[in-house]
């Protein structure tokens, strides 16, 4: 009993020390790339296993990265919208790429899924979660829009509703339109509920 009280007292002291966070092994680390900051070149792996680099995907007006998943129903609800975005904004001078950082979705599955859903944009694997960690990406779908100087101009959701019938703001399109004209995104940072990116367990 005495031991229990000592343990409880120790717990209380630890709790009193402040807010704690149980970082589960798969949670997103704090982003090192935030809106307004520049990103260097980063390595990816193509779906057929070849090395690729971020800077290779430089559009005339900028580059859009969207973290996607094959098995996340939220990401899947956005398949058609992402395909339309890629079609519309590739035509307007943006490079659009999807990034799959989920450990449980192998490249073959990602390729097959993209073909079946007609995504129509390049999807790269972030095999060691390096890019996801650097960006602090934590859900799918989650968008990162860079201008031509590789400065992050928008980070967040595609729009404000999984259900296309209930959309009231299309934040990503608004940001793309602004960046195409060299202006800041009207809203540069948004959040939305989504599936956690399935990261590699950290040792």
């Amino acid at each position, binding site marked *: 009993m005495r031991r229990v009280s000592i343990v409880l007292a*120790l717990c209380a002291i*630890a709790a009193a020390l402040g807010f704690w*966070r149980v970082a589960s092994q798969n949670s997103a680390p704090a982003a090192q790339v935030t809106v307004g900051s520049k990103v260097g070149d980063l390595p990816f792996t193509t779906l057929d296993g070849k090395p690729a680099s971020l800077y290779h995907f430089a559009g005339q007006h900028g580059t859009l990265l969207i973290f996607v998943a094959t*098995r996340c129903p939220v990401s899947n609800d956005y398949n058609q919208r992402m395909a339309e975005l890629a079609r519309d904004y590739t035509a307007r001078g943006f490079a659009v790429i999807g990034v799959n950082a989920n450990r449980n979705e192998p490249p073959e599955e990602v390729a097959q899924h993209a073909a079946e859903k007609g995504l129509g944009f390049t999807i790269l694997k972030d095999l060691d979660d390096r890019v996801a960690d650097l960006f602090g990406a934590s859900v799918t779908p989650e968008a990162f829009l860079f201008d031509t100087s590789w400065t992050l101009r928008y980070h967040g959701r595609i729009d404000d509703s999984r259900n296309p019938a209930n959309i009231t703001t299309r934040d990503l399109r608004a940001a793309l339109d602004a960046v195409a004209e060299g202006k800041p995104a009207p809203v540069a940072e948004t959040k939305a509920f*989504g599936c956690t990116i399935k*990261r590699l367990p950290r040792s």
Partner: protein
Amino acid sequence: MLTFRTATLPRMVWRGPILVLLLAAAIGRPSLAQEKPKFSPKSSPAAKPSSTKPVADPALIDQQGYQDILGKYRGKPLLVNFWATWCEPCRDEYPMLNELAKKYAPQGLRVVGISLDSDGEMILVRRFLARNQPVFPNFRKRPGKEEQFINAVYAKWSGAIPASFFYAADGRLIGQIIGESTRDNYEAAIRTLLASGAADTPGTPSGSMPGHE
């Protein structure tokens, strides 16, 4: 016996029997399975729990409703878990949370589940709750205004689920688990939460809002 380590470094202990239980629970969960295309969409009858009596639909809450819930449970250590039927790790963890809710109820722990499912997913929500028979109340976030809601719960949260938040008896948010986690992590967090309640003088919560409905 209780051994304490800091909450940020929860101990990793092999718990064979618990894993077996979790596995059994995982098999018994509904196959809601957009995320698991390789599995048959039909449920496995062998693992189906015997009691699948219907559970009332979770009441819809908005941002204010969330604050009302926190107010209602003031005075008790509270774990709030956000889940959705479309979230595979949420489905995996839910039976474990149900067990922990039972296990720690005598020590004062209260648990509330909040579904982030959309209206169109209510059939899955009903099936999920009927199968899991949660011992704790569940609510559903009214779809819309996601960002405001996320920021009101915890500004540093991205909205990724599963996510659990731990509120001390005085209403302070003292910790969170975001992303899939382990039973050991949860137990360590719950013990810290319960200890934080023990540290307070009973009957003198620091918050001034009574907040009862």
